[in-house]
């Protein structure tokens, strides 16, 4: 990811400008975080929210494996391979839902350290990869 334009993402508004972290909101009044960004606070009902970069590392809070190809609006490849989905707790911020790079439930464990990365989840009409965010277990190949 050095030099040249940044690769295409599923939705640029989900990420910081440099594409390295998720972009959420933090309530100026009560400190509650949201992801993606939103204008109103779901905790204190306030309406003053500031952009905040979310932590790239956290711990696995729960997980499952998607075992069948979802119907539309899913846009992943026709050839389906089960993928992991989890919630990762980012300390002091929130618990974010994400695809996981691991799809073997025996290699996933609640509480294990996880790190965010960008992964291709489909190719666009021009044959270029479209990236989304995912979490990967830390310290595993």
């Amino acid at each position, binding site marked *: 990811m050095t030099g040249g334009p940044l690769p295409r993402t*599923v939705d640029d*508004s989900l990420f910081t400008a440099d594409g390295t972290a998720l972009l959420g909101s933090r309530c100026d009044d009560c400190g509650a975080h949201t992801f993606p960004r939103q204008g109103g606070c779901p905790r204190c009902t306030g309406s003053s929210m500031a952009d905040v970069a979310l932590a790239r590392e956290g711990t696995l809070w729960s997980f499952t494996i998607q075992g069948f190809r979802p*119907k539309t*609006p899913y846009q992943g490849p026709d050839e389906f391979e089960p993928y992991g*989905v989890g919630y990762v707790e980012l300390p002091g911020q929130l*618990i974010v*839902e994400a695809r996981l790079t691991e799809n073997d439930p025996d290699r996933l464990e609640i509480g294990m350290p996880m790190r965010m990365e960008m992964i291709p989840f489909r190719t666009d009409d021009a044959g270029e990869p479209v990236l989304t965010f995912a979490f990967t277990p830390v310290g595993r190949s």
Partner: protein
Amino acid sequence: MTAALAIVGIGIHPFGRTEGVSGRAQAVHAVRAALADAGVRFGDMQFGFGGSWSAGDPDTLVSELGLTSLPFINVANGCATGGSALIGADAAIRSGTHDLGLVVGFDKHPRGAFNTDPASHGIGAWYGETGLMLTTQFFGLKIQRYLHTHGIGTEVLATIAEKAFRNGALNPNAWRRKEIGADEIAAAPMISHPLTQYMYCSPGEGAVAFVVCRADRAHDYCENPVHLSGAALRSRRYGSFEVFSPWLAVDAAQSPTVDAAAAAFAQAGLTPADVDVAQVQDTESGAELMHMAETGLCEHGAQEELISSGATTITGSLPVNTDGGCIANGEPIGASGLRQVYETALQLRGEAGDHQVPGDPRVGFTHVYGAPGISACTVLTR
């Protein structure tokens, strides 16, 4: 609070797949059966509340039932559609506006898992495009966390589904009427780990209708009325873990099920310990397990012993989903909550046949849960 509303007529169209019969026709079938059960005519109905997700507008049923100018209110509240319709009817009667009316719920869904447009939930298109917008996935994530938190093994999930099919086999209106053993359920294809194909309900078809009236006039229509002693609908709180959530708050809060159940019991002046028969949302078997505790029917973590010892079977001390639940009946969204009330009415009237709970049950409880984090509960008595 004294019950204001009594159910004096009940009608159902069998659940499952009925090729060539529209959802609206199934609704008309259920309404006619409910009217006949109460011994009244459609022209006697002073109001109607009806709900359907994908089988047409309920208020158009009047073209088949009779153009009588009654006020008919369509209810669209996801899985809580039936409960919301009953709450609307309860308010109409409690306020003194009406004395006698109709509640109906019906649906007919295409095969396969529901696919929902993220935009209808205020979520960006990316959520669906990247494969996160699935109710099946949510239930896998929620039960995984729940089993971990409460130290429960996965074996009990197959036992729950086995019971659902066993009860469904006893219920002539159920969709799945063949028993399936726990080993076969556990070995079925994994849909969303740790939940297999046979642990999930499927979208389906069906219809349920009730004739309801002022509780103090119930005996004018029926010898064995069932009273709506409590009914409550709640949405989610900050911090609860709900379907279609791109994020959760770190500070956990109780689910809308906890709030709705507590409110329904408080209205009825009863407690979960008073319940003789319960129907809880079992979108999949993990949901039944979690909802047993969230509704207050048992302590968190106590389910494994209750389920494996048979306490939740029809002859057990806490019968749950005696008609086979969603797993054996499928989930036609507009009809599903009212199916639970129908089954409870059968049980309290002593008319449930092969799936009748013994011991003359007097207090029934129903619970639905659905997107985007809503729950509706009722307490029914006789």
